């Protein structure tokens, strides 16, 4: 792999900073090795390995800035990148909202690298695919799945003395198992920093069981139901809301956190008292870099929702300066408190309800209320007197995460969950929620 240790990376960032003639200079180096295997119809369809390393240089003359990126690291290329960024900065119009490079920061390292994950090789990946395919064949199912692992590093520096270097590993696995006649479908997702926390067989069995249980699905009239939402079913829905805590949008009147009259909802109780949500770069399950790549500010543990109240808003450096607040680093993870019960225990305590495995194609319908639409997929079941009675046809829903978090009956034990279209690593509990709004039926399996 094309990788640099801290010393090697610092030599390059020092060299780049020394080459710059601009008022300020910021440097970033990122390198990665990403391996994957993709399979469908019980056969591997593609497999690949991508290695890359990039140098990013951003400079500014006054309020004019320019950014250049190269993936060559000889002296000539380093100089070319600096000159290119400087040329762009001279061409760029002044940005009245430009913020100068940040002062030196203290970055407390997070545990984002595990050697076991970094040592994943093509045989490991092939074995993941083989495990899923063999288990599916035994059950007369057809699988489609994807396993991807990455080993990365990131280095940042600027002309004010900022420097940070960090290594990362992660893996992600998704599997869909379908019956041969297409009448049943089950799905599972797993993600981890540490390969030791991933078990392809355990994960595959979840998707297989759901597929086998989901045939002969019955139609239930759309309407408001008590639902038991697995973490994968809420990750994209809540992720939409987590991305909407921007103070500027709230202050400017174009956010669900805006109030009539030009104020925001900081401190308001918008959710059930059980709701507590925070970001923490040092979380043991979803550690992330101790800085964010946009501002280079050091991340801190930040409470977003405390006992159902909006506890903080996100301030960009510009908006913080304008409003006299503290700027916040962009968050890399989101953690929501839960209870101690497993999903099965939540089901066991439910008189009538619907279990949702996964939600799909979630889109904003009304940003004013954060109303989202989407569908259930790959395992929707009816629960009666604490037991799954039968599979259900899929539903479309129109619902706001604000309403969902207001209607919580019970929270289960939180789990690690990656978001497909959400820029956060997450830990979310399964939730039992009343009056969830299903608006129509889908014939899709």
């Amino acid at each position, binding site marked *: 792999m094309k990788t640099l240790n801290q010393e090697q990376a610092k030599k390059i960032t020092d060299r780049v900073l020394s080459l710059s003639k601009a008022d300020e200079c910021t440097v*970033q180096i*990122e390198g990665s090795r990403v391996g*994957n295997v*993709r*399979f*469908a119809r019980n*056969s*591997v*369809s*593609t*497999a690949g390995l*991508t290695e*890359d390393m*990039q140098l*990013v240089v*951003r400079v500014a003359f006054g309020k004019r800035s320019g*950014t250049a*990126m190269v*993936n060559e690291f000889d002296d000539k290329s380093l100089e070319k990148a600096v000159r*290119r960024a400087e040329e762009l900065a001279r061409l760029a*119009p002044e*940005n*009245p*909202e430009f913020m100068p490079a940040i002062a030196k920061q203290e970055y407390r390292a997070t545990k984002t690298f595990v050697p076991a994950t970094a040592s994943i090789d*093509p045989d490991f990946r092939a074995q993941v695919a*083989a495990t899923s*395919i063999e288990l599916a064949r035994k059950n007369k199912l057809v699988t*489609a*799945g*994807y396993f991807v692992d990455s080993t990365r590093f990131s280095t940042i520096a600027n002309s004010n003395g900022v420097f940070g270097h960090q290594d990362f590993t992660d893996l992600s696995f998704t599997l*869909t198992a379908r019956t041969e006649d297409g009448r049943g479908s089950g*799905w599972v997702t797993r993600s981890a920093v540490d390969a030791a926390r991933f078990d392809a067989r355990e994960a595959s069995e979840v998707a297989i069981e759901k597929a086998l249980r989901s045939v002969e699905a019955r139609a239930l009239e759309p309407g408001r139901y008590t639902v038991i939402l697995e973490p994968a079913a809420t990750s994209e829905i809540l992720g939409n809301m987590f991305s909407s805590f921007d103070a500027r949008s709230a202050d*400017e*009147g*174009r956010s669900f956190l*805006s109030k*009539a009259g030009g104020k925001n909802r900081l401190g*308001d109780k918008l959710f059930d008292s059980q709701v507590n949500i925070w970001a923490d770069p040092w979380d043991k399950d979803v550690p992330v870099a101790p800085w964010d*790549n*946009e501002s280079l500010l050091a991340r801190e543990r930040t409470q977003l929702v405390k006992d159902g109240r909006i506890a903080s808003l996100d301030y960009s450096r510009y908006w913080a300066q304008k409003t006299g607040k503290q700027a916040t680093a962009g968050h890399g993870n989101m953690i929501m408190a839960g209870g101690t019960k497993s999903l099965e225990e939540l089901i066991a305590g439910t008189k009538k309800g619907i279990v949702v495995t996964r939600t799909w*194609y979630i*889109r904003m*319908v*009304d940003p*004013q*209320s954060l*109303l989202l*639409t989407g569908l259930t*997929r790959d395992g929707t079941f009816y629960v009666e007197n604490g037991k799954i009675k039968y599979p259900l046809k*899929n539903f*479309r829903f*129109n619902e706001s995460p604000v*309403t969902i978090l207001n209607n919580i009956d019970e929270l289960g034990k939180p789990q690690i969950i990656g978001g497909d*279209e959400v*820029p956060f690593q997450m830990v979310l509990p399964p939730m039992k929620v009343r009056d969830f709004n299903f*608006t129509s039926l*889908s*014939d*899709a*399996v």
Partner: protein
Amino acid sequence: MERRKFLQIGAGTAGAMLIPVFGNAIAAEDLLKPMAASAKKVLADTAMGAATQAGASYCDVRIGRYLNQFIITRDLNVESINNTESSGVGIRVIADGAYGFASTNSMTPDGIAQAARQAVAIAKANAKLQTEPVRLAPVKGVGEVAWATPIVKDWRTLPVKEKADMLIAANKAGLDAGANFMTASLFQINQQKYFASTDGSYIDQDIHRLWAPINATAVDQKTGKFRSRGGLGAPASMGYEYFDAKAADKVRAAGGVTTLYTRSYDIVEDARLAGKQAREKLTAKSVEPGKYDLVLSPEHLFLTIHENVGHPTELDRVLGYEANYAGTSFAGLDKWQTKKFKYGAERVNFVADRTTPGSLGLIGYDDEGVPAKKWDIIRDGILVNYQATRDQAHIIGEKESHGCSYADSWSTVQFQRMPNVSLEPGKARLTPDEMVQDVKKGIYILGRGSYSIDQQRYNFQFGGTLYYEIKNGKITGPLEDVAYQANTQEFWNACSAICDERDWRMGGSFFDGKGQPSQVSAVSHGSSTTRFNGINVINTARKIG
């Protein structure tokens, strides 16, 4: 599927340092100097030689150089200007009946040969889990050829300031007309793609695309309400001349409610109208839910076509290759085999076409070296064909590929992607104004909005940008909080009228996502204004807290 994350790249680059999807910075001095085709041929021959020697029965090589420039503005400020470049080689082989793929940015003969051998090794490893060997439809080698998007003005040669000034002028027009906030962005893409294969093709292509999305937001501080109106211009595969707006390319919407655009785009005018209409939306009547006849403008209908017809007729979905991610399709092989599956009303005809001028899917050859072509997908309402690549053609009894193979980078493997899929215009003369005259209770919808459809492309809910109530043949005023829900097959069978070719124009999806790892492609969908009778409309207004 429209992938939100790729749009966020555009919206979120202000101050952001890395743009991982789009690669490295353009060195201006090298911008207009592509590598000579003869040099690329030498590299391609090296790769094919190494692959063949290692045991490949087939090899194709894609040498790519991707140049992009993105300009992001907000109100009267330029937030960021990013120039990116990415170059490298992707090598796909078949060995022991299985695919293997490897890519490298090392453009040396040694680096390329090593990647070719790695691709063969991966293919051989995959062969152990392969249920049946890959079977490629024949493609006749075309020798050494070149193809380029027809452009008049090359964005790479124009001053950044000129382009930024255009976006700022648009924002100013929107603010002056009533918006409280404006954004305007400009995405410019140049793909220099060289394809070579052991079939005997050496194809050099130079592809250009651009898109300038805008958004106006109006806020009523008193009530706390806010509403937005996006742009009505389409992305296009053209040069920068697209922004030299011509009066002849402007279209009056039904009832004169707004101005629409065809072969060129007046971004400043559209932004002005966006500002005005965003403010009007604050006081528009909230829709009464119920059944309506919908009159859908092409600027709206393109995305409905994309989701309802483009995606379900992708053969890889039909076969299950996207089952874990983008989904499968209700339009299964069994339905196609009957030759009677009534996808839509008899007047509904869909054509796949990679040759339409100005369309985002316009190319000379696909990423398997197959020449661009045009074919029927739905004829007289019946499903007659799919979109296929070389390894899929035999499954649907075709002797050659449809040319639907695409990879979004030299570093990603090519797979089946959508061509332009368009609705043919109606055969009888009909204008949008005449269409509205026949509607008793209806809604006229323009522009893209919230789009969601299930994984088999059946149940959908779509919204738009602008909605106008139609009562007894007349447009009576703006509506808000509108979304329509239906099932794809029922919806297209409810198609009651299509305006003629005078009204035909394209919309486009610039960042359409699919595959694992996810790749983006760009595609256009043309139509005339079209009416659908008796569609279920819901009211989307909600209150929280």
